[in-house]
């Protein structure tokens, strides 16, 4: 075991994957010599050579397309999109090509690809370094969307994603690269060094895909969260005095329906959350499915805690971000509801 922050844990996963499988290659804008603007790929070029860890020209569509060609021809590319806000030039390649190749070729070609990308807000990045675009991707058949919330899961989920034979979009909550975040903008900066999930095995292990985890047990209400909001939800649950059960989804598509419905049937109440704008977000999908599967167990409407239907503002970041207060209000409301 070693103490790792999320950057080190992801780097360790890449290192192990490249060590174990000569077909794993890593590339992206500034990811080669420099090791990425967040340093996730640091040291890999030195260790594995120029043609296994390299820089690309600035063209996200071409990065995705290159991964498609390489993967179809037997490699296992792990490509970085520098910020998830910049993934959209690659959208056509992902929607129409990468995620359909297995289907349209009736399994003759496959796409073992991981697209990693720093994701989410809370770093005063303004509208082009703060987005949570996961819902655009959860809508695509044939694509896994994975979002870890801590170093231990980040490493295990990344290794599982690389070893999986289908394409994965792997979003990394950049606000938590260096430490967990409880959603209080003015609070002290936390570090993973004092967090149990900052204890990471140095060797190979995986955290299962498509599997959620109950990270806080409770009886009164189920709170579904992923990425940055897992920690916000946990802190809010502590402070609110409500006996909330918090579930970290980890994989958004396909989501772990059993863990979710078991919990909601137990608690009878549910809050779904996302940092992204409210309308047509992933929380809406969860809400609809829970309503279908758990309707007769529900004692209150399902509440959503989300960002607003606006672009991510810069100066007023903390009025946009769904922080502790908004979770606490939702917890109280859902408990007071009939």
């Amino acid at each position, binding site marked *: 075991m070693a103490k790792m922050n999320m950057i080190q844990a992801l780097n360790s996963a890449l290192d192990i994957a490249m060590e174990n499988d000569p077909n794993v290659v890593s590339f992206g*804008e*500034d990811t*080669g*010599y*420099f090791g990425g*603007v967040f340093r996730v790929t640091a040291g890999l070029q*030195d*260790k*594995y*050579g*120029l*043609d*296994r860890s*390299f*820089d*690309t*020209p*600035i*063209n996200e*569509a*071409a990065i995705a397309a290159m991964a498609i060609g390489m993967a179809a021809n037997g490699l296992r590319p792990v490509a970085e999109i520098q910020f998830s*806000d*910049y993934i*959209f*030039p690659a959208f056509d390649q992902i929607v129409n090509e990468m995620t359909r190749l297995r289907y349209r070729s009736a399994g003759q070609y496959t796409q073992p690809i991981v697209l990693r990308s720093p994701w989410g807000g809370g770093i*005063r*990045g*303004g*509208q*082009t*370094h703060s987005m949570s675009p996961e819902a655009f991707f959860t809508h695509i058949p044939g694509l896994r969307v994975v979002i870890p919330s801590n170093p231990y899961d980040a490493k295990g989920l990344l290794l599982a994603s690389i070893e999986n034979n289908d394409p994965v979009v792997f979003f990394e909550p950049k606000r938590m690269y260096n430490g967990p975040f409880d959603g209080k903008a003015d609070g002290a900066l936390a570090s993973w060094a004092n967090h149990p999930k900052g204890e990471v095995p140095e060797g190979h292990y995986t955290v299962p895909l498509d599997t959620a985890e109950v990270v806080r047990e409770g009886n009164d209400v189920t709170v579904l969260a992923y990425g940055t909001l897992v920690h916000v939800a946990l802190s809010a649950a502590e402070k609110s005095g409500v006996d909330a059960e918090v579930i970290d989804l980890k994989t958004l598509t396909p989501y772990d329906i059993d863990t979710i419905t078991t919990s909601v049937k137990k608690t009878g109440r549910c809050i779904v959350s996302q940092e992204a704008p*409210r*309308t047509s977000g992933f929380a809406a999908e969860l809400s609809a499915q829970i309503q279908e599967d758990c309707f007769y167990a529900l004692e209150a409407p399902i509440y959503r805690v989300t960002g*607003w*239907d*606006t*672009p991510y*503002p*810069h*100066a*007023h970041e903390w*009025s*946009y971000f769904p922080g502790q207060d*908004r979770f606490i209000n939702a917890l109280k409301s859902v408990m007071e509801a009939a």
Partner: protein
Amino acid sequence: MATNEPRYRVPVPNFRPGDEPDFSHLNIPAAGDAKRPSVDVEGRETTALALGMVRVLDHNHQAVGEWNPELDPDVLREGLRHMVLTRVYDERMQKLQRQGKMSFYMKSTGEEAVSVAGAMALKNSDMVFPSYRQQGILFARGRDIVDMMCHCISNSKDNLKGRQLPVHYTWAEGNFFSISGNLGTQFPQAVGWAMAARYKSTDQVTASWIGDGTTAEGDFHGALTLASTYKAPVILNVVNNQFAISTHQNMAIGEAPTFAMKGLGYGIASMRVDGNDFLAVYAAMQWAAERARNGHGPTYVEYFSYRADAHSTSDDPSGYRPKTEARAWPLGDPIERLKNHLIGLGEWDEERHEALDKELNELVVKSYKEAESFGTLHDGPLSPIPSIFEDVFEDQDWRLIRQRQDLGV
């Protein structure tokens, strides 16, 4: 280091930290060499300009050759002033960022001539679609410095209501488009603007700037395709400052001998210009604007320059290039070169330069005091919180009204 030869070529820069930078391999044409064709030349006839380099100031700081725009010393002094102001402003803002006064900053050090001379050669009524590194245009167009600062510190007087990262200015009154953080997107938009200008029968010219790294984006090729197809009155500029964050320009240029050459495939008049030579930049932009205004179509220009400082306040270039590289850059510093030219003409001297520096430093310090009186990012006041729900649509829909109520503002 892995010992195997890479199985495909992955370009690497010539120098890494610790290396002694030596640019003697660069084949830099002499000032005055380039021929100046008439503005109605066919695009395909500009090969020599795309392979060569338009340069006016020679190593003795004298203006030579056909491209000499023969500017009045008053205009040169004005250009010098805007460039010095740009640099002083950048320095100050970077310091303030370090002190926590703003979230982020991007300097244009070493590239001031590209934006200042380019803007001065255009009319103020011409439209510009800059990237985040052409703040010099704002000074050349006379934007109020306090207003610029209020944007950067996101206070109550920020004309963008705190919605954008610092440096991502918008100034419609000054015909300055809204800068996007997404690279390349605005290059083809500039062509659309230029077509609309034609549609409305104005003689407005439109210019856009991107960096060398951004030429790899599909939107770069979209812009050149559109400009070539519709013969739009647009000037498409690539500032080759040698770097895209940590990545050397050779990652974007591929096998092309120059970025300027890439325009020729589209049949667009293309040229490479010494980007640290105020007079050459001015002359090229003036030529391109005249060409566009007279209906002869687009021009595509590469400015050969060097990013003398970090990419942004989030970057530390000592991790990927020698610290001494900027000093070794063979095309010098744009401010020094124009200053020396003016001195050579007997139109300037060290004392006046020092006085200018001092005056502009004082102006920037005084302006910042005033800007701060309208608030700072951390201590406020900011634009009112409910403003985050404005301008999403023309009118707020029920969702935004509800969300505003939920937020309790």
